[in-house]
């Protein structure tokens, strides 16, 4: 199963090599997420409209290896934006990917930008 997780290395903001044009921003529900297919990867993208922010992370929940995080509820814990997995409500920081309510492993996050009404996800060389 490790292989599955290893398919999703984190991408740092300043390491972005190319921006994948995912879908029109309007396709993403307000204050919710949807799943983007990129090659053989699944990326969860969240339109945190309440904060005017966008986030992306792996769609795979590492707790029971379920492709599901895009269907999770988002929210905040203190200042930290987070997503809760629909299955067992493990919550992850959308900024750092860290599991906030347990010791499940950290998930990978990706830079997102919106330009001309389109959502782009940033990938580094690891995803070439």
């Amino acid at each position, binding site marked *: 199963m490790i292989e599955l997780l290893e398919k999703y290395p984190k991408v740092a903001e300043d390491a972005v090599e190319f921006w994948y044009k995912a879908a029109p921003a309007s396709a993403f529900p307000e204050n919710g997420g949807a799943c983007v297919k990129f090659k053989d990867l699944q990326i969860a993208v969240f339109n945190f409209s309440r904060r005017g922010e966008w986030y992306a992370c792996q769609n795979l929940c590492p707790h*029971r290896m379920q492709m599901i995080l895009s269907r999770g509820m988002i929210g905040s814990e203190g200042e930290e934006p987070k997503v809760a997995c629909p299955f067992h409500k493990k919550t992850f920081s959308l900024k750092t990917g860290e599991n906030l309510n347990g010791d499940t492993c950290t998930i990978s996050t990706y830079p997102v930008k919106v330009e001309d009404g389109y959502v782009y996800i940033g990938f580094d060389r690891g995803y070439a």
Partner: protein
Amino acid sequence: MKASKSKVIVVGNGMVGYKFCEKLRNTDTEDKYEVTVFGEEPWPAYDRVHLSSYFSKAAPETLQMAPRSWYAEHKVALRTNELITQIDSKQRLVVNHLGESFSYDYLVLATGSSAFVPPIPGVDKKGVFVYRTLEDLDAIMDYGKKVKSATVLGGGLLGLEAAKAVMDMGLQAHVVELAPRLMPNQLDEQGAALLKSKLEDLGIGIHLGKMTKEIQGNGKLDGLVFQDGTFFSTDMLVISAGIKPRDELAAKAGLALGKKGGILVNELLKTSDEHIFAIGEAAAHRDQVYGLVAPGYEMAQQVVNQLLNKDVQPFEGFDMSTKLKLIGVEVGSFGDPFGTKEPSRPICFEDKVKGQYKRINISSDGKRLVGGVLVGDTSAYGMLLQMTQNKMALPPEPEDLILGGREGKSSNPMGGLDALPEAAQIWSCENITKGDICQHIQQTESGDLGEIKKCTKAGTGCGGCLPMINDLAKFQLKKLGKTVKNVLCEHFPYSRQELFDIIKIKGVKSYDQLLDEFGEGDGCEICKPAVASILASVWNEMILRQDTIQDTNDRFLANIQKGGTYSVVPRIPGGEITPEQLIVIGEVAKKYKLYTKITGGQRIDMFGARVDQLPDIWEELIDAGFESGHAYGKSLRTVKSCVGSTWCRYGVQDSVSFAIRVEERYRGLRSPHKLKGGVSGCIRECAEAQSKDFGIIATEKGWNIYVGGNGGSKPQHAKLLVNDVDTDTCIKYLDRYLMFYIKTAEPLQRTASWLNKLDGGLDYLRDVVVNDSLGIAGELEREMEFMVNTYACEWKEVVNNPELRARFKHFVNADDQDPSLQFKPMRGQKIPVDWKS
């Protein structure tokens, strides 16, 4: 298939060897195997577990697993008094001590264990015994008649049993244990200390941390010399220092052995030879020998399954939970008693006056029980063991498991807390008592959980003890005359009931508006579904208008399953269905390859639908006249019925028609938690209405209404609200009751726990519902009437609304299905593959 039968030889006719024969014979209905079992002892297998009762009953027949005649009747050739001395695995033969050989196709070694005797000088002296067989007991009883005191070497499970036995023989009993506590493998320090004091009260001397260096005496022993040089006088010694698997026969045949002895087996219980299995106390699985009978029986079952090509579950180790059978002292240890095998946190409770110690270990995510220890009161053992082994979800307040009846007994849930002694320990990681927590609350006059956590460190672990601390805090504040406030979460400083009123009075229709005006932060997975539920209970608008505040099941109007597919449950009111409708369900399930199952709620569940298939499936169901069953919602599920007076010779009312009427009245009604009902046609109660949130039972004169029943992990019978009401009155009271619950319960609180915590309890509820003591009955009825009139099938709306329908897909940027979905076949249908982790 071979023309002749295959031969199975079992070596060892102990508990497990016997159980194997019994299971094989019960399962081998086609008589494929010829079975021979060899036992070295003179009699057929007997129940070693209850060996101690031999002291009082002294009739070996009563201990027999089965009489000799059983073996004859079941075509098992029994050869007692025969020791197998050799295995020739090449020729597949075994040889007995008389030199006779017997051929086999499969050999099952169930040679058990003998008592382990540590190599202490003097163990061969007269007056030194072990405690394993009927002969051992005969010898002990014989010798015991001549002496005054007896010492048991070993303070484990068995040693304590032996100590009790010699004490019952009228001897002064002592236990000498090497470890610093009794039952070191099963009990933690505190539990063991309590056990020690109880045994001492019984008159048994306990000597801990004593290493025996020598057994002294001239021919017969007269005492022990410990490592520290002290001499301990005793007339008799019973050694109970563990077991030594009988692997000598296997070793001689060249079979692989475990590192610590025992015949090495894999997870299929096979030894290093294809044709030889080993089971019971002789087998070493992952280098561990299981000194209990239950794992042995499980091993026997799995070998039988293999021989008969039945579904084999690999043997993955076994829970070593135990309960001590000592009279007067109850001890239980289950799962992982020390909570060290996985990250976990204990909740402990000790009552020194009653002599009770209870500990449960809660998994670090706070969801499961991983094990625990009980001393003094093991009444909860069975339930706790079940919960641990079946990984059952914990009740909302796990401490109820060991404190029991905190609520049930009185309508005041705090009663039990009051009764708790100050020194009762309610700690998580630290040593925190009820007194510590109450003191903190007294000083700060605050019930703020965060504060309590910070100052006392209580609940900083898994949080397993938090609910109890919360209760304590409220209780203590109430005592100080303060009002206690239950807030939803960090985003709303209000209780659910307050939010309900705010939403209703201020006319708030959206979550965002509520958060802007009355909350803070950005919301979370606790307040979003809670508010979504209130909005639905107040306005009854289509929930997908605000889909991202819904819990996942509500967001996709289906229950999410392992693997990420969903289930489809159409409503089948009262469980009544026509053959035509059954055919439609069958056709739909067949078309979409869905796994079908009859649920516990008298309807049919179709599992394994992809998110993108849901609207298509529902379109077909709706065309055929079905509607959503709301199996996904915190809303009315089913109203179960029995057949009633239409067909049943005992029925006094038409329970099916009434169940359908009630189910259709409350369908889609969103509530703090799910709601279930039942209608039985007579007092025999075949619809199990008394286990439902509302139960209706027919009488000669009308209906009896029961409220607040629950199944689940903490079952509770419903309580009688009123007798003999007519049909319309029944509906009227149900309207009031349900609406009152919806308005006042906490999020995710079923009617049972709501009623338990309701101040004034059932009498108060009856006052409100039947006597209208609050003067709100009319309002409650009108509110319910509104819900009934505004009901619409959610799936019908989705199916007919392209915009809503478009949300049911896995990817936003592709029409592909989720490639990670995986299934495997089972009994002609499909199921998802197991969780990966």
